[in-house]
């Protein structure tokens, strides 16, 4: 019933395109960053450097993917950084050999078993978050804030504060190969990058193609309506935190493998980077809005920025300032863009009045 039909405007109303517009800001930011650093450092655009930086990005990107799901439900997960540390330590314990005091034997599980166990641990921690939030109605911020401490403390207790070195494993124990995760390559591309790709595709399918995705967006958009429509809101929320925990555990493994050692304090403040990536990617912390593509681009923005700053040798202090500024600016870009769009559209509309109304009035626009 649109009196003055504007087919041009209509598409902008569609969820997908709306998001695309929001991602734009991330792409712009990314483009700007690449251009600047490419002009400042000739090695920035080399293939090998791109691969290295992308490997660094992968860590944050995988966290961001899990965080995206959480944020889509309107929640937040502050515990991912600690889970990264915990899963690394778990892997460390198992690869170093796991003493069972009662029998005093030492177990040396296979690498695949180690990986599985660590991932399970991360998922379980996520599940605890989920239960606190769904069953006990603890606000996500608080539940995961508590877990931030609990998981970190647990990692410290398990490792007794020490770092587990030399996770390469030993042939005679048949537990070698852990290094592959962090340093291996497939078709010339590092494994960690492949892992990022796999996670991205999987999660994209999950939220775009599966009913689960609809439920996710619905839960974030209007939880009451969703549950009245028979969406298993609690289950969805629970799963989401489990996935986030899984992603964090994966990251923990990758880092432990890269360093061939697991330190309990690994991953501190990672959560902030992940959240920043998701939001720069156009997601709304209120829930219900955000995309996989956006989150990825956001992760690249942050990763390329910090690597680039190091390459051109900006002082550490400035690095901190610039990082903060970029996070805010990337998000602000979008505002300006949206306003521009609005005012232009409004102006156009006002002009249409001129044809039927006396021009004198319409040509004097007040407070746009």
């Amino acid at each position, binding site marked *: 019933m649109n009196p003055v039909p504007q087919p041009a405007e209509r598409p902008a109303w569609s969820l997908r395109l709306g998001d695309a517009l929001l991602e734009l800001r991330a792409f712009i930011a990314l483009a700007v960053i690449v251009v600047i650093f490419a002009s400042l450092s000739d090695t920035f655009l080399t293939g090998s450097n791109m691969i290295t930086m992308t490997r660094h990005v992968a860590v944050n990107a995988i966290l961001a993917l899990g965080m995206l799901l959480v944020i889509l439900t309107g929640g937040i997960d502050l515990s991912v950084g600690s889970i990264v540390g915990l899963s690394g330590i778990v892997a460390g314990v198992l690869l170093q050999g796991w003493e069972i005091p009662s029998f005093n034997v030492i177990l040396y599980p296979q690498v695949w078993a180690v990986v599985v166990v660590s991932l399970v641990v991360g998922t379980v921690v996520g599940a605890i978050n989920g239960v606190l939030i769904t069953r006990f109605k603890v606000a996500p911020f608080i539940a995961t804030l508590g877990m931030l401490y609990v998981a970190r403390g647990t990692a*410290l207790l398990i490792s007794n504060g020490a770092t587990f070195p030399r996770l390469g494993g030993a042939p005679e124990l048949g537990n070698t190969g852990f290094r592959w995760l962090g340093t291996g390559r497939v078709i010339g591309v590092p494994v960690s990058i492949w892992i990022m790709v796999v996670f991205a595709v999987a999660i994209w399918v999950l939220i775009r193609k599966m009913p689960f995705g609809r439920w996710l967006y619905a839960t974030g958009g209007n939880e009451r309506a969703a549950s009245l429509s028979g969406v298993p809101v609690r289950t969805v929320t629970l799963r989401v935190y489990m996935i986030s925990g899984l992603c964090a555990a994966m990251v923990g493994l990758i880092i432990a493998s890269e360093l*061939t050692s697991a330190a309990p304090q690994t991953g501190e403040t990672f959560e902030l980077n992940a959240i920043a990536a998701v939001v720069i990617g156009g997601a709304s912390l209120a829930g219900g809005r955000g995309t996989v593509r956006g989150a990825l681009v956001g992760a690249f923005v942050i990763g390329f920025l910090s690597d680039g700053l190091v390459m051109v040798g900006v002082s550490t202090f400035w690095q901190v300032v610039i990082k903060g500024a970029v996070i805010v600016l990337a998000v602000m870009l979008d505002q300006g863009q949206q306003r521009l769009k609005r005012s232009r559209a409004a102006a156009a509309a006002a002009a249409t009045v001129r044809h039927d109304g006396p021009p004198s009035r319409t040509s004097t626009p007040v407070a746009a």
Partner: protein
Amino acid sequence: SSGGGTDKPAADSTTAAATTAAPEAGGLIAVITPSHDNPFFKAEADAAVAKAEELGYKTTSASHDDDPNKQSELIDSAITAGAKAIILDNAGADASIGPVQKAVDAGIPVFLIDREINQTGLATAQIVANNSQGAALVAEEFVKAMASAGNYVELTGKESDTNAGVRSQAYASVISQYPDLKLVAQETANWDQQEAFTKTETILQSNPGVKGIIAGNDTMALGAVAAVEAAGLTGKVIVAGFDGSPDAVAAIKAGTLLATGLQPAVQIAQLAVEQADEVITKGKASQEEKQSIDCVLINKDNADKYTLFGLTE
């Protein structure tokens, strides 16, 4: 210098530190150090606790995580808990003066270990490893391995940490004598392994010609080692560290790390406790305030003689 064998009781005493020891002991000694998630500080704290309990004291062992405010709060607690002495590895040469003053005013002798404060006549003793001497040793070894020429990178510690500065200066003072050694990048990795890894990788990208990396402590050095391995440059790029942490020594044995400067942390901690005991029992200190214990260079020649933050003769 001998810290040999002390790691055994140290290991046991972590539990003892959590609870408190025999009631008939001669009062409380509070041990305050940076975060125990660095093995160096853990070893030092454990050694102090072990020694103190050996001498019949109750102990508390807490970590200020390099947060001056938390340190000040911990000292407050020690004061209210009526500690007989405080063994402190402080959270900043300047930021710690106030809190130490507070303890001294409350009549509690403070024994500083590992890190000095920019104020004398306050603490009963400041027992530190001679960082600049140790760093100089490492630098010389580094120069030798570099054949006195080529590009190198330095990874520095937290700017807020005095020792980061001291070591960096000592490195510079030695290396600057060799004009062919060029510092192509200097980055802080905040004592952190993962940060060191990432930054080293990035730096290696922007400076392909790098021949050596010298780091302000072992955690960062090991991060660099991992990065070098990842880049497949093991052997082509040499790495040196500082602290003498067990992992570093293992890396030296493995040939991925060139050398590290061993800080006799255990020995220092024990000295501090012994002198504290002396002051508590005899009422006066026999040593002068500033005491610096020389560091020892660890490379593949003497790596086998290493015990936790100590070296057997």
